[in-house]
């Protein structure tokens, strides 16, 4: 067992554990903070797997933007900060589906890959990803720009009910 | 020239329907009637295409194909679906074509004079003409997929006629009619493409001539699907439950066309398509078909004996008569099929007349209830006389058209031989006697005896037979007599094709 394997296991455990805490806790702000830990652990996993750019992007977008947005939303809507017992939902269907999917995928991968060793490739830094992207994947990249523009404009319309409407 | 008549027979009703729909009420009805008359004339002129002359008993050569069209038109339409515009007429379909154009013309004339409540007359005439296109297309189609398309054309206009101008429970009856008929049609679609996928062609002339052989499994599957489809249309017991409601609730002209022609699409399809294309399947299924046909005869008769409503009784009598026709087809002998063909035409003429008369009775006395009607002879002797004539023609009196179909279906069953068929023949003969019984009961209740209050009520001028009614009924009366005395009018044309068909089936 190499050091990378140990790190993968440890970070994976942190990610799964904090993920479980996100959905089981009944305090909203704590859920947001557990999400930070979870996503940070996933970023750590990417780093161990030498996908540097993806790890930094994960931290920037998910931890930085998304979670901060979550916390701002909690603040501005004056959501309850303490315990909220009504946040609880029957967990059994979710456990069945989530656990089933997770265990199923694990079984599939174990069956397909068995006990094999994978050589880690060269580090996935910005230069390498850029070369790959602009050598083979330009079209989806450009179409994504249309998607993002649409999302931007759409978000503005959804959030500003006074645009364009006459009372 | 003959191709022109063929195209005209199909195109004229289409033009008439368009004209009738677009013009205002009275003008639309006149327009539709004129085009229906032109179509009738075109169908008569189409008879001149017969190669050997009208009354010839020209025997066919040995091994001639079952379908030798007198004239045909063949244009490609949708090659990707094996659909060609291939129309043609021969001895089997020609009498039905003339019957269709004649009955539609009479219905349009009737509508000129009297429009039932529920909508405008010109729309009714337009719908009648669209139904006519569907019926004519079915009889003239020589391509299986084209046959299916025209089979479907009939459904919605007939639904609209029943739902728009019908009786009290018209919506339910119309919906039942539409769903049952579509059930049959979709099975027809699957059956047609079972054959087309296996054979590679949809051309009826090729498929029936024996040039293409289908495996036994394909033939059995195809015949089952096609037979069920045509059994729904004919109708064959036990798939007949749509018929009484549809016939009873439809307006007079709707009932005339339904009973007169639409039912024939099923039996024609059985003879032409099911037996022609899948002969081995026909041989395999003929005992079952015969049994169901005789069951239809007996059930129809027994139910008729218990009926209390005039139109419903005539509707169930159709089930019985179609049972005779289907028995003739099931025997797969030349006599049987000939009996079926003339039984078809005779039933069309006579039941058309019966429904006209039933409609006349209901319009005058505002009821069709047998318990309420009585003594029609006292107040309206001509109407009661015509009703008696039609009823007697329907029960199969020799000398009138109905005799040939019934009698020779029984003869064909005996001709087929074997204990089962002889039993079926005997039961069918008993059914014929029961037919006489219920028609006599009908006449006894409606025409004889003292005049009931309902019959007494309307004043004499209101119940007199009017000119247009006479114009509408007299061709049917004359034809019932003529076909009864000179069956060669129908049988002479169809002898050669039927002979070839039986040779192909028993090969």
């Amino acid at each position, binding site marked *: 067992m190499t050091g990378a394997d140990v790190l993968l296991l440890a970070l994976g455990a942190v990610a799964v554990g904090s993920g479980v805490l996100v959905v089981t806790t009944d305090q909203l702000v704590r859920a947001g903070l557990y999400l930070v830990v979870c996503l940070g652990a996933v970023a750590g996993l990417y780093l161990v797997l030498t996908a540097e750019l993806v790890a930094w992007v994960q931290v920037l977008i998910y931890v930085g933007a998304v979670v901060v947005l979550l916390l701002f939303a909690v603040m501005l809507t004056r959501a309850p900060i303490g315990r909220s017992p009504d946040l609880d939902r029957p967990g059994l269907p979710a456990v069945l589906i989530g656990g089933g999917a997770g265990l199923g995928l694990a079984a599939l991968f174990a069956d397909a890959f068995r006990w094999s060793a994978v050589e880690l490739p060269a580090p996935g830094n910005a230069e390498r990803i850029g070369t790959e992207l602009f050598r083979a994947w330009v079209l989806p990249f450009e*179409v994504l720009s*249309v*998607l993002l523009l649409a999302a931007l404009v759409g978000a503005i*319309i959804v959030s500003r009910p006074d645009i364009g409407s006459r009372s | 020239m003959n191709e022109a008549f063929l195209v005209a027979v199909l195109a004229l009703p289409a033009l008439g329907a368009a004209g009738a729909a677009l013009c205002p009420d009275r003008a639309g009805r006149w327009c539709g009637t004129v085009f229906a008359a032109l179509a009738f004339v075109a169908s008569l002129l189409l008879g001149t295409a017969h190669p050997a002359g009208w009354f010839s008993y020209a025997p066919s050569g040995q091994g001639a194909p079952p379908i030798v069209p007198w004239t045909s038109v063949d244009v490609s339409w949708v090659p990707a679906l094996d659909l060609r515009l291939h129309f043609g007429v021969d001895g089997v379909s020609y009498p039905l074509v003339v019957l269709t154009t004649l009955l539609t013309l009479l219905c349009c004339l009737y509508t000129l004079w009297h429009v039932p409540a529920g909508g405008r007359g010109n729309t009714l005439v337009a719908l009648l003409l669209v139904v006519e296109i569907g019926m004519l297309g079915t009889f003239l189609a020589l391509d299986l997929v084209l046959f299916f398309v025209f089979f479907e054309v009939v459904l*919605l206009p007939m639904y609209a006629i029943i739902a728009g101008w019908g009786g009290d429970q018209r*919506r339910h009856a119309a919906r039942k009619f539409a769903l049952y008929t579509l059930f049959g049609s979709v099975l027809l679609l699957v059956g047609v493409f*079972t054959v*087309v996928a296996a054979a590679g062609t949809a051309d009826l002339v090729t498929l029936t001539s024996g040039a293409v052989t289908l495996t036994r499994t394909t033939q059995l599957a195809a015949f089952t699907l096609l037979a069920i489809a045509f059994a729904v249309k004919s109708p064959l017991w036990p798939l007949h439950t749509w018929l009484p409601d549809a016939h009873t609730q439809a307006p007079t002209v709707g009932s005339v066309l339904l009973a007169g022609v639409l039912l024939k699409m099923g039996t024609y399809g059985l003879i032409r398509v099911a037996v022609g294309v899948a002969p081995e399947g026909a041989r395999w299924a003929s005992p079952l078909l015969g049994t169901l046909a005789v069951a239809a005869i007996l059930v129809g008769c027994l139910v008729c004996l218990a009926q209390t409503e005039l139109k419903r009784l005539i509707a169930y009598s159709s089930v019985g008569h179609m049972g005779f026709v289907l028995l003739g087809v099931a025997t797969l002998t030349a006599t049987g099929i000939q009996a079926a063909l003339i039984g078809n035409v005779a039933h069309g003429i006579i039941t058309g007349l019966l429904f006209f008369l039933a409609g006349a009775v209901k319009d005058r006395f505002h009821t069709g209830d047998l318990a309420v009607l009585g003594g029609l002879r006292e107040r309206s002797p001509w109407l009661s006389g015509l009703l008696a004539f039609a009823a007697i023609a329907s029960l199969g009196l020799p000398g009138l058209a109905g005799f040939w179909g019934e009698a020779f279906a029984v003869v064909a069953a005996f001709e087929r031989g074997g204990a089962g068929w002889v039993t079926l023949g005997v039961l069918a003969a008993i059914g014929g006697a029961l037919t006489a019984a219920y028609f006599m009961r009908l006449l006894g209740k409606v025409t004889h005896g003292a005049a009931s209050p309902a019959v007494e009520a309307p004043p004499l001028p209101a119940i007199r037979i009017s000119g247009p009614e006479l114009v509408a009924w007299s061709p049917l009366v004359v034809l019932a007599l003529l076909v009864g005395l000179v069956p060669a009018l129908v049988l002479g044309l169809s002898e050669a094709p039927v002979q070839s068909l039986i040779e192909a089936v028993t090969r």
Partner: protein
Amino acid sequence: MTQAVDHVALLPGYLAAGTAVLVLLADLFVARRVVTLAVAAGGAVATAVAAIVVGAGSDRSTFCVGDACSYLANDRSALVAALFGFLTLGVLGLSAPLLRAGVAPAGEYCFLLACSMTGGVVLGAAGDVVTLIIALETLTLPLYVLVGMRRQTVESAAAAVTFFVVSVVATAVSLLGAALLYAVTGRLHLSTLGPALTGDVSLAGGAPVRALDLPLTSVGIALLVLGLAFKVAAVPFHAWAPPTYDGAPLPVAAYLSTASKLGGVVAILAVVTVALPPAVTGPILAALAVLTMTVGNLVALRQIRMTRLLAWSSVAQAGYILAPLGALALADGRTGDAFSTAVTAAVAYTVFFVVLELGAFAAVVALREPTADGGRIDSYRGAARRHRWIGAALALALIGLAGLPPGLAGLFAKVAVVRSLLTGSSGWLAVVVALNAVVGLAYYVRVAALLYAPDPLDRPARAVPWPVAGVLLLATAFALAIGFAPQLVLDWAAG
């Protein structure tokens, strides 16, 4: 070293994206609703025309890595792009009264529709899984916002959220499937994925093993197909469709049931025909088709609201579209001739369906207030007596969807499907399709008959705005034309 770009092949895509940007600029600088709509409509027409012109030439491909290309401009992609262009044009016409009433801001509304059209155009030509899924998402994301445009109502917001959540889950499922397939084969381009899946793979340097023997492969294929089945609203992933159609503004519901469904079908066809082995996808699609047809028709019988009825009927119609692909379940259905017939039948049915559905929705829009939803079916009683031609057009569309004359387009669509099933020896599936057609007639004819029933309330006729009437006229005329000349559609579908 970058990829070669064939700009001619990309012309429809450029025009579609350019329309989107141009619409925003027009709205910014000119700020007149009519001009914005005109620019959007002109762009949609230009996209369609460019697609037809490019498709008339030889097949082109661009953004290639070796032999595998991400953008394939062939006859089928031209057909899809042209359809998207014309559908967008139609929906823009139907939206004109909505925008005049001020329900939504004109510039942003047209921009979102144009973005959706761009996604559709690229989807038709997608050559690899990544482009496919991104294009599908570009097609759907603007619709999340557009569904919620009737802002003062709760149904609209609920519809938007339902649609958003379900769609995102669907995209995630299909992405997971694609990722699993990448894990097994290391390929993403559709043309290379096919041979890789039927061949041998050696995972992580182990012994070579048949890719199809690994359960991982089958699960990946299943997830990809099922994720795409969400978009088409196939049972059991259909539950979002009725509330979403009902809550959305009517023109957006029209776009959802035509263009969005077209996109889902195109995506499924792209993966099933090229990449995934038919022996695995065939049974999945057969099961989906049977379930979808049956459940869609049976539940539609009970509907009392017009848009929900149209939604459930479009669920059932998706079943008819998937049915020819269900023939792949049997070995006879996978032979070259039967396979190509099945794909042609599916594409042809989609074209017929899309035209008839647009006609039906256009008629419904013409009969309702601009800001209203579809309303109860009872409120259409006697509509054909008040508005002769609109009622006739709606009846024609409904009867066409049922598959009867005079809606010949629908009849030939069903004939094509049954024919392809019997050519592929799937007689049982043909009988299921046939029986479902009977069930379908029950509710289509009920609504069509209600249009002609006498109206006890004796409501007056309403004025119909000319763009809506124009779209209805064009859609109905086109439906009649392809009804009498279905060979055209079958030729286009065969590619």
